[in-house]
């Protein structure tokens, strides 16, 4: 019933080893950016780039994953990430199963493990999980034999966000290597910051973390990948000087076990204004993972200005998530090299064969 698809759309040569200098990377899960190599990340971004084209086409639906099911287990309220995953699955022709915190049986006291085992018993081909506990995706991956995508775990990582950020940066600036990247806000509690520190570090970026001192634990310095650097700065003017990319984070005003940071102080000291933006390199990019609070961490004039990449990030999020879903479960069951339950993430060397469009 893929009425919106057209055989006229040619799927790009995703995963074609020949077009990637013979390098084919396999992923069982996508849990974090920390363990990924620069080569693997580049491969993922190249795959995602192929899916960017599809977002521009009037008819966007493929049948690549027809018959596959993606479980979306969102134990923490989320709008954009959940919709992005659901849309990515739909555009690849996959069905999705939706579990949302508000309606989940966790509210009734069921354990996370029982809940995901229940979901798994409905035989999804992979699961994307968002959870407020750091390590939740890792925990699930140890207990399920289907691929797990971390859609954000506590204050640990949000790898798909970092990948879409990297794709956005690469599109705009033509490279990632060696950039000066400044991340503004509550670094300590940000999974987006961690995933970006790890990912960008693999490309030798010089990363500056800026925010109130209590949100900048000194151990963050030790997250720097070899060949990159992480420094902590409490003055925004110093942090923005020479920045190629500025990532603003959402400021959560209330945190468990912690006094709230005074909002007026935050605005005064750390809001990204046009005047402050001028301290960065000309044409420096402004990214925000959303949801964005105008007038708090970011001046609306910056959010809507030409340097802002906020909406591109959202579009690129679809491409990244389509690429990941394709790589993790886009394998033909009729392939002579059929998948086994142990290696569901295996990508065969000829994915194009399975990527033909629905003709029905």
């Amino acid at each position, binding site marked *: 019933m893929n009425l919106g698809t057209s055989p006229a759309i040619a799927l790009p040569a995703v995963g074609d080893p020949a077009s990637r200098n013979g390098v084919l990377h396999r992923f069982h899960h996508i849990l974090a950016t*920390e363990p990924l190599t620069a080569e693997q990340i580049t491969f993922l971004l190249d795959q995602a780039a192929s899916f960017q084209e599809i977002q521009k086409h009037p008819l966007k639906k493929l049948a690549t994953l027809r018959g596959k099911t993606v479980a979306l287990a969102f134990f923490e309220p989320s709008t954009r990430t959940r919709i992005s995953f659901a849309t990515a699955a739909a555009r690849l022709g996959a069905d999705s199963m939706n579990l949302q915190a508000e309606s989940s049986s966790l509210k009734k006291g069921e*354990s*996370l*493990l029982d809940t995901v085992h229940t979901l798994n018993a409905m035989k999804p081909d992979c699961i994307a999980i968002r*959870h407020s*506990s*750091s*390590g*939740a995706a*890792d*925990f699930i991956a140890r207990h399920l034999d289907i691929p797990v995508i971390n859609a954000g*775990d*506590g*204050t*640990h*990582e949000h790898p798909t966000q970092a990948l879409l950020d990297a794709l956005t940066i690469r599109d705009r600036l033509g490279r990632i290597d060696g950039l000066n990247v400044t991340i503004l806000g509550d670094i*300590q509690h940000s*999974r987006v910051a*961690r995933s970006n520190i790890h990912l960008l570090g693999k490309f030798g970026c010089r990363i500056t973390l800026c925010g109130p001192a209590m949100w900048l*634990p000194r*151990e*963050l310095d*030790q*997250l720097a990948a070899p060949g990159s650097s992480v420094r902590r700065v409490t003055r925004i003017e110093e942090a923005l000087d020479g920045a190629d990319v500025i990532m603003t984070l959402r400021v959560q005003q209330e945190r*468990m*076990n912690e006094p709230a940071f005074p909002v007026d102080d935050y605005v005064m000291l750390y809001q990204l204004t046009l005047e402050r933006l001028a301290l960065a390199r000309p044409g420096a990019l402004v990214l925000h993972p959303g949801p964005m609070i105008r007038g708090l961490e970011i001046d609306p004039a910056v959010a809507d200005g030409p340097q802002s990449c906020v909406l591109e990030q959202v579009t690129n999020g679809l491409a990244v998530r389509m690429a990941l879903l394709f790589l993790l479960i886009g394998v033909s069951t009729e392939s002579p090299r059929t998948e086994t339950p142990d290696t569901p993430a295996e990508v065969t060397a000829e994915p194009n064969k399975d990527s033909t469009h629905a003709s029905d």
Partner: protein
Amino acid sequence: MLRISNGRVVEPSSGTDASLDVLIEGDRIRMAAPPADVSRAMRDNGKTCETLDATGMIVAPGFIDLHCHLREPGGEHSETIETGTRAAARGGFTAVCAMPNTRPVNDNASVTRAIVERAASHGSVRVWPIGACSLGSLGESLAEIAAMKQAGIVAVSDDGRPVATAKLMRQVMDYCGSLGLPVIDHCEDVSLAAGAVMREGETSVRLGLRGMPAAAESICVGRDVQVAELTGARLHIAHLSARASLDLVREARDRGLAVTCEVTPHHFTLVDEDVGYDTHFKMNPPLGSSEDREALLVGLADGTVDAIATDHAPHEPASKAVEFDKAPFGITGFETALALAIEQLYLSGCVSLMRLVELFTAGPARVLNIERGITPGAPADLTLFSLDHEWTFRAADSASKSRNTPFDGRTFRGAPMVTVVGGRTVYQR
């Protein structure tokens, strides 16, 4: 009568390290002497005698564990006095001090009596209850400590949490000083530790897990030491994990204060870097930094640390099969304690055999102000162990009801071989 022959007796209180036979009559030790002397005594006595061949084994006074959770009453799905003491016997312990955070809390004599009676009828080893300092361990009003003492407690503690305020601590110490009971504190500044699930440091930042700084412990140790000075009471710091805390204890002792401390096998074996998201590495106090571990090893060697205590904290499997930040704190410890001590302290050259034995026997006895020796008339509690027996610990084979250990599958050299309590062999490997 029971004759333990061909063993190497290592007894710290007298400094004995010799090939002696030990003769037990009833529940008491009759003598520890060269084999010929023991044979002569037996001939004179004329009674029949069983012999236990301890060739290749160390014969030590019975091990005492100052810190464990037997979960009974109230937590029998995780452990009972029966299963917990069976695990203790397998670990070479002949007496274990049970923390009062049961349900109900051991804050009155009837709970104490129930524990003592249950231990007498179902326990493999001696159970010495520790009473709560405050009613319900809530930190508000004093528990009936004298009545509990009469019923059998050997110390007081609000373990699981610190004694809430300096004022209450002063009252408890004043009172316990007059009763002759040590006060054991779980040192933690609860405001600094709120919500934390591991030690603060690079690993906590990397994992995105909330950390508590080492100061959360040492701030409270500092408070307690000063209250001990104010009252002159005996203070024992439970499961000490941070270098700064150890420095405070050392300094207090140098000033002549009656301050003692214990260290757990997991804190001298593991560090915060070992924490992934495996909930079997989640305990309180959390695993410290490498520098903390190094400091603990120094303290274990130089005498600052009085005892190795397990903090055996069983939790049923389902309660640990959850997200890291939702899991309860604690790991089991009886069956791996000695093997870890041999591995980390003795075979590594950190402590002598005599000191190793002291940390399990004379050390904890000193904390409780009791004697622990292999002398005529002493209770016949003995721990026989090997320094070279090779074995693999399997959590599934544990005598505990719970399986929450980070040491499942670990291969050891050195093991408890025979445990004798009151002249009765309660465990034999």
